[in-house]
C-alpha cells in the first residue's frame, strides 16, 4: 500500500517534470526541471532496486549533465526568440504528437505483455560471481563477465574528449579549456570550493573502493571526483591544464591502457584475453578500477567544460 502511494507519487512527479522539460519555452527553466527530473529518476532507480544505477543517474545523468546543459543555456540566453521562427507549424506539432503518442502506447502495451516469469541472468550471475571474488554483482558483470564492453566504454570517453577538443580554433590549440574566473565577490563559492573537495575526493575514492562489494564503482566515484575538480575550477582556485600537457594525456588514457594491459596479460596468467588469473581476479579488478576512476574523473570534467578557449600562458 505504501508502495502504491510512494511509487505512484514519484512517477507522477517524474512525468510532470519531464513534460516541463520538454515543452516549456524558457530554456533555463526547462534545464532546471531536467536536473530535478534526474534527481527524482535516481529515486526511481532506488525504487527499482538498483543503488548502483541510482548513484550513476544522480551524479552523472542529473549532476554533471545538468552543469553541462546550464553552461550551454547561459551562452545561448535570449536565443529562444530567434529559434522560435523555426518552430514547426501547428500541423507538424499535431502529427508529431500523434506519432509519439502511438509509439508510447505501443511500448506501454509491450511492457504489459512481457513474459511471466521474466527471463533473468541473475541466477547465472550469482553462480559465477565467486570466481570473480567481488561481491557486487553489477561490478562482476561490468568487470568480469562483460569486461569487453566496459573496456570499450572507457575508450568511448577518450574519443568523446578528443572529438570535443577537435572544435578548438587552430590558434588556441595547446591552450586551456574553460573560462578564467575572476569575480572578486564570489566568496561563498571559493569557500565552498575549499571545504567541499576534501570530503568529495574521499567520497569518490570510497565509492570506487567499496564498489567491489557494495553499490558503487569507478563511474560513480570518478563522477564525484570530476565534480570536485569542476568546483575548484569554477571558483578559480585551480586552472584547467593546457590540453597538450603530457600528464593530462596520461591521466586520460590510464584507465583504458591499464584495462588493455590487464586484458592482454590474461593470455599469460589466465585462460585467455580478458580472463583473470584464478585467485587473483579481485586485485586485477581493483587495479583496473583505480586507474579508470582517475581517467573517468579527468575526462568527465574536461568534457563538461568544453574545448580550449584561451592560450596556455595566461
Amino acid at each position, binding site marked *: 500500500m505504501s508502495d502504491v502511494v510512494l511509487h505512484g507519487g514519484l512517477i507522477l512527479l517524474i512525468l510532470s517534470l519531464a513534460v516541463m522539460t520538454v515543452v516549456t519555452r524558457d530554456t533555463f527553466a526547462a534545464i532546471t526541471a531536467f536536473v530535478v527530473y534526474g534527481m527524482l529518476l535516481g529515486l526511481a532507480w532506488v525504487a527499482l532496486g538498483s543503488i548502483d544505477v541510482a548513484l550513476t543517474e544522480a551524479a552523472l545523468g542529473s549532476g554533471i549533465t545538468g552543469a553541462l546543459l546550464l553552461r550551454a543555456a547561459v551562452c545561448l540566453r535570449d536565443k529562444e526568440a530567434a529559434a522560435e521562427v523555426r518552430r514547426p507549424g501547428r500541423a507538424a506539432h499535431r502529427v508529431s504528437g500523434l506519432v509519439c503518442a502511438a509509439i508510447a502506447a505501443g511500448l506501454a502495451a509491450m511492457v504489459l505483455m512481457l513474459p511471466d516469469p521474466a527471463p533473468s541472468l541473475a541466477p547465472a550471475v550469482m553462480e559465477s560471481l565467486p570466481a570473480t571474488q567481488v561481491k557486487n554483482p553489477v561490478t562482476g558483470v561490468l568487470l568480469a563477465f562483460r569486461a569487453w564492453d566496459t573496456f570499450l566504454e572507457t575508450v568511448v570517453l577518450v574519443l568523446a574528449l578528443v572529438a570535443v577538443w577537435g572544435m578548438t580554433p587552430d590558434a588556441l590549440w595547446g591552450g586551456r579549456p574553460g573560462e578564467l574566473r575572476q569575480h572578486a565577490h*564570489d*566568496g*561563498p*563559492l571559493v*569557500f*565552498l570550493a575549499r571545504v567541499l573537495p576534501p*570530503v568529495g575526493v574521499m567520497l569518490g575514492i570510497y565509492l570506487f573502493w567499496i564498489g567491489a562489494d557494495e553499490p558503487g564503482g569507478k563511474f560513480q566515484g570518478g563522477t564525484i571526483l570530476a565534480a570536485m575538480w569542476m568546483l575548484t575550477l569554477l571558483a578559480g582556485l585551480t586552472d584547467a591544464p593546457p590540453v597538450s600537457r603530457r600528464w593530462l594525456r596520461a591521466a586520460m588514457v590510464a584507465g583504458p591502457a591499464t584495462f588493455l594491459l590487464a586484458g592482454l596479460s590474461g593470455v599469460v596468467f589466465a585462460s585467455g584475453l580478458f580472463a583473470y588469473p584464478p585467485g587473483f581476479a579481485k586485485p586485477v579488478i581493483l587495479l583496473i578500477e583505480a586507474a579508470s576512476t582517475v581517467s573517468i574523473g579527468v575526462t568527465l570534467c574536461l568534457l563538461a567544460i568544453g574545448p580550449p578557449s584561451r592560450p596556455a600562458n595566461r
Partner: protein
Amino acid sequence: MSLALDIFTVVMVVAGLFFFYAGSIGMLRFPTVESRLHALTKADNLSVGFIALGVMPQMAEATDALKLLLAWALILFSSAAASQLIAIAARRNRRRDP
C-alpha cells in the same frame, strides 16, 4: 521504549513536513529573490534537520544514524553556499539591467 521512540519519530517528521510546507509556500508566494531564498533555506534546512533527527532512532546501527547527521551537515553547508551565490547573481543581474 520503542513506543516512545516511535512517537518521537512521528512528531519530528511531522514537524519537518510542516516546515517543508511552509518553506515551499514561501518560495512560491514571496515577491523577491532574496525573500524566497530566505524562506527556502531557513525552513528547508530546519525541516531536513527535523526529519533526520526523527528517523535516527529507527536506524539499526549507530553508524547509520551518524551518516544521517553527516548528510544533514552537508545539506546545511551546500545550501548555505548555494543561496549566497544565487543572491549574489541576482544582485549582479539587477545592476546590469534594472
